[in-house]
């Protein structure tokens, strides 16, 4: 089952650029791009940092693709 995320949606809702988010989370812009495109699943640590950054519960940011 694939992990779906709503990172791009939430980021655009808050008018945050990829560069700004990368700087705030201390990760590279390429990683954010890969996460948004679903090419890379972040570690638990990074996922928790993202939840704190967007201030949303887990199920709102990451969920499993329904079959």
């Amino acid at each position, binding site marked *: 089952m694939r992990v779906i995320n709503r990172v791009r949606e939430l980021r655009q809702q808050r008018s945050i650029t990829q560069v700004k988010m990368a700087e705030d989370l201390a990760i*590279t*812009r*390429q*990683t954010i791009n890969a996460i948004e495109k679903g090419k890379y699943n972040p570690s638990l640590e990074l996922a928790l940092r993202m939840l704190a950054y967007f201030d949303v519960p887990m199920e709102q940011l990451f969920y499993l693709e329904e079959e």
Partner: protein
Amino acid sequence: MRKMKKRYELLIYVFITLCSFVGLGLGVELAGGQLPLGSDLLFIILAGVIGGIGFPMLLSWFKRKQREPDMDERTFRMMKDYLLGAFVVVSLFSGVLLLVLVGIGYSTIELGLIAVYGGAIVILMTAGLFVVKRF
């Protein structure tokens, strides 16, 4: 703008690599096709290590003013995967090469050839690491 800067950076690296090869060619030409031995070889290896690894590390140390980091968990994972893959490929290739050499009748290998082979592998793997790091 950032993309442009990265492109220039890549061009500079390509230029430096080309210069290195021209320098190598010139060196071999001037030395009369003989590779250096003993302490000369050690000095060349040390200069290569300092110039090829130490200097870029020093440069990146001074470049750390930007807030966005150069590497993160994804980069480390990709580099780890790359190194693992490169290790398997190099091991297999070396094994096959050895079998072929034994098969065609070689029983000894010159130490200089092993040094050149090892050096080429290190250079190729380092270049590959830089490429992986950029993705």
